[in-house]
């Protein structure tokens, strides 16, 4: 059923852009990790879920809004990321992709089921729903707006980090050419730990964001849905390019929303896959990635 009213078009575009920003942020972590150490992190959704739970507990015990408690999620996820790297990921650097795929898959199942065991399948939610901001006929959900703004701000911060700080530049150097960077005196192992931890930290933050941005409720399986989307976005934007992830996020967010509004809501997941497959066939390096 198509109802093409102008206000509806604007509503759709706004929702799509907001969603895109959040999608982009979710995907940046994934692409960063792959770009730097060529590890495909299938456990992405699991870390997202952990970030969401962190916000939930913070909200429950400290009464702090998820958008404000972000630094906490960042910190906790950073520590978890570093730990995961040291315990697991380190051993599969340089190994064939089969290893990292299997390892991260094992991790994701482990984290998910441990969460299920520890916290149960009960649905939880964060009771923070301020009224929407109304501009003309368009209702902008405040939660999602806040999440998108934070997502963009974080991406900007990440960009500054990668381009202006010493560590950031070292990370980019390692991503470009590991051996050359080592020859230049970069402690590659330390960079790996940092990059991975940052990647996971960003995902953890994204997890906090989605609790107010897109998810109605929190439960252990919530991250799975986003993992595949993140893969699509990352491939579309170019594996290894954070800017690409952001751009890809907006594209996918917009396309999904527009199709849901004007063609049929049920087609959205199919579209993601079609885009993914097409990208891989036509231009596997994505929009902003380096050509293979």
């Amino acid at each position, binding site marked *: 059923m198509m109802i093409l009213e102008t206000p509806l078009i604007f509503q759709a575009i706004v929702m799509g852009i907001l969603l895109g920003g959040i999608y982009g942020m979710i995907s940046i972590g994934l692409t960063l990790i792959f770009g730097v150490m060529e590890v495909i992190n299938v456990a992405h959704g699991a870390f997202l879920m952990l970030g969401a739970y962190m916000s939930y507990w913070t909200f429950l015990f400290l009464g702090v809004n998820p958008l404000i408690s972000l630094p906490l999620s960042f910190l906790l996820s950073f520590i978890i990321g570093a730990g995961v790297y040291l315990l697991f990921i380190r051993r599969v650097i340089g190994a064939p992709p089969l290893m990292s795929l299997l390892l991260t898959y094992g991790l994701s*199942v482990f984290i998910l089921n441990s969460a299920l065991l520890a916290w149960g399948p009960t649905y939880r939610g964060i009771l923070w729903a301020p009224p929407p901001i109304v501009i003309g006929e368009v209702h902008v959900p405040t939660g999602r707006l806040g999440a998108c703004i934070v997502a963009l701000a974080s991406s900007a911060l990440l960009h500054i980090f990668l381009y202006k700080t010493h560590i950031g530049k070292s990370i980019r150097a390692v991503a470009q050419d590991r051996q050359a960077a080592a020859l230049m005196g970069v402690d590659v192992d330390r960079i790996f730990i940092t990059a991975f931890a940052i990647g996971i930290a960003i995902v953890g933050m994204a997890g906090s964001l989605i609790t107010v941005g897109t998810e109605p409720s929190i439960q252990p399986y919530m991250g799975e849905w986003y993992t595949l989307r993140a893969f699509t976005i990352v491939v579309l934007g170019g594996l290894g390019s954070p800017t690409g992830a952001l751009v890809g996020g907006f594209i996918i967010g917009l396309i999904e929303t527009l199709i849901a509004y004007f063609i049929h809501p049920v*087609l959205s997941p199919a579209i993601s896959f079609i885009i993914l497959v097409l990208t891989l066939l036509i231009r596997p390096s994505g929009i902003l990635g380096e050509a293979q």
Partner: protein
Amino acid sequence: MKISDILKNSRNVASKGLHYGVYMTVLAVLIVLPYTGFVPRLSLLFYLFMFIIGAQSFNIMGGYTGYVCFGHVAFIGAGAYITAVLMARMMISPYLAIVAAGIGSMVLAVIIGYPCLRLRGAYFAIATLSINEAIKVLILYLPEEWVGGYYGITLPPIYTPVECYYSMLGLMLATIIVTYRVVNSKLGFGLVAIREDEDAAEFVGIDTTKCKILAFMLSAFFAGVAGGIDAWFTTYIEPYGAFGIPKTTEMIAMCMFGGAGTIAGPILGSAILFLVGDFLWARLPYLHMIIFSVIILVVVLFMPQGLMGWLKEKYFKILR
């Protein structure tokens, strides 16, 4: 030292006879099994065979060629669906349906292969994974009268469990024998060369494209037929089960656990992981996934060469 002596002896003295003797014994045991009252456990062995076939056919691409097809389950699912649609909707004989499933999977392999085999490593894995998902979504949204959509297809139970058991047993043997022959043939040699260094292989004159597509087709064929026989036995398929990612990952884990790139590896790995996993699932419904994931982690971290690689290192160093 004693072990190596025994092994050296068995290699030198009428070793062929010994090996074939042992093969035949195991085979005889498996064939006679249904008649000895083990009948209730048939389904266990049946699914074990299916996983062995899945792991072994994956091995052809993933282990020997080095192309990790993360969407391997797509072939099993395609085989199952072709069989189901032919049998349930068009009332075609099961034999024909199975053959069609095998051929259909090979065709699917060619269709997927030509674009995807150009990609390397991680990209290939993601590509096949996403194609698997795309097929699943496609089946979900096609009209129900064709492929059953969300609710799946129920097949008429034409074969008894025992007959299905023998079919799967036969298929498993065929898979193992064929894999063995291929590995020791020129094609096998080419595949290993591709795995080690594809550019060098091209340079030396191996037609990598042809080798890869052939391997893919072979891999798909066995997976497809296995999917079809599974459909006979389970009499019900639906998109999430037929194209589920956990199935692929389990097969890959089994292949790796036993040792990818060997013939015995997938068989060993499947046998152990499947039996252990099934046991855990039955007795510890809340913990089995956690334990299973821990096993996967342990395998990847400490035994990336798999059981066969580990065995080779420990016991066969002496012989080489």
